[in-house]
């Protein structure tokens, strides 16, 4: 289910100072968006598992890059939330 405000937040972090803003002004940034308490807490805790179902995957890809995750770490983090069905599909 797409969460407009969660996606909006990530979308607007795409500027060149996004990482600095997120690192140093996270609470202030979160206050600008009408997030549910659950999603707000997920952003505070870097709780990727809660964010995956509500954030567009391409914005999630950007979000992980912004957090400083390289490809291998992004893949590992996301893979930890794979379902058994997804695991079977990927592994043939």
């Amino acid at each position, binding site marked *: 289910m*797409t969460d*407009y405000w969660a*996606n*909006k937040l990530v*979308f607007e972090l*795409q500027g*060149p100072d996004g990482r600095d803003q997120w690192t140093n002004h996270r609470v202030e940034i979160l206050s600008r968006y009408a997030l549910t308490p659950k999603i707000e807490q997920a952003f505070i805790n870097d709780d990727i598992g809660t964010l*995956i179902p509500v954030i*567009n*995957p*391409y*914005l*999630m*890809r*950007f979000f*992980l890059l912004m957090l400083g995750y390289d*490809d291998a770490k*992004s*893949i590992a983090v*996301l*893979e930890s*939330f*794979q*379902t058994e069905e*997804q695991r079977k*599909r*990927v592994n043939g």
Partner: protein
Amino acid sequence: MAKLVGSFAASHAPNIARSWDTLQDDTRDWLTTRYDELGKRVKALEPDVLVIHSNDHWINFFLENMPAFLIGVGEEHDGPPEPFMQPIFNGCTFPGHAGLGSHLLEFAMEADFDPAYSHRIKVDHGIGIPLWRMGFDILPPVVPVFLNLMEEPFPTPKRCLAWGHMIRQAIEAYPEDLRVVVLGTGGLSHSIGETTMGWIDEPFDHACIDLFKNAPDDKIASELARMLTETGNGGAEVRSWSVAHGAADGQGFEMIDYIPMPETLIGCGLAEWKIAA
């Protein structure tokens, strides 16, 4: 009258640009030689205009407005704004072709398609990477066409094939003598920002190639509609290949090359549909 002289498709993975200097030599050599070949073939056709179908990557559009199809009708477009594209294009602009772009828009509306349009679009890596790697000395004017392949629902493969046929008819109805090349960018399989990220679905890629080689439109449409529910999200971009296939009226498909390329997270493919003279 204008004439479609070539139709092509090519992948556009961001890591081709983002990681260019650190790619393994074999990967960089493969990309260099294959995109050079693509560029050689396109340049040999002496195109006056490139009509490039790609998808926006959260650069121009957000959830407030997600057009299924959008045609760039401006005289000029902005270059890629992504930080990893800055060393390549350095804030430059891309020449558009307002006459052909506006004609494609009006023709599409008359043909019962309902695209959005833009007088100035940001041309992101989806268009920028293939153009960069093809190595034009002077870039021909570009009519960018965006498909929504970011946030579902997406245009169906059937609709994308029909769009491609319509684009061919529109080009050939344009009164100015122009040599036009259609390019569809994206794909082949990849999985981005989802739990299967990094998955390259080779059976999907080979099945797509076989469909473009051998199958009629209705089979391509139905098979892709099924296959796309079972592969990674980036496979959606094969719709841009479907547009190129439709523009070529389904004839003359030739795979330039394909390789699963984990460093760029994609099944990397380049193809040409030879247009009969």
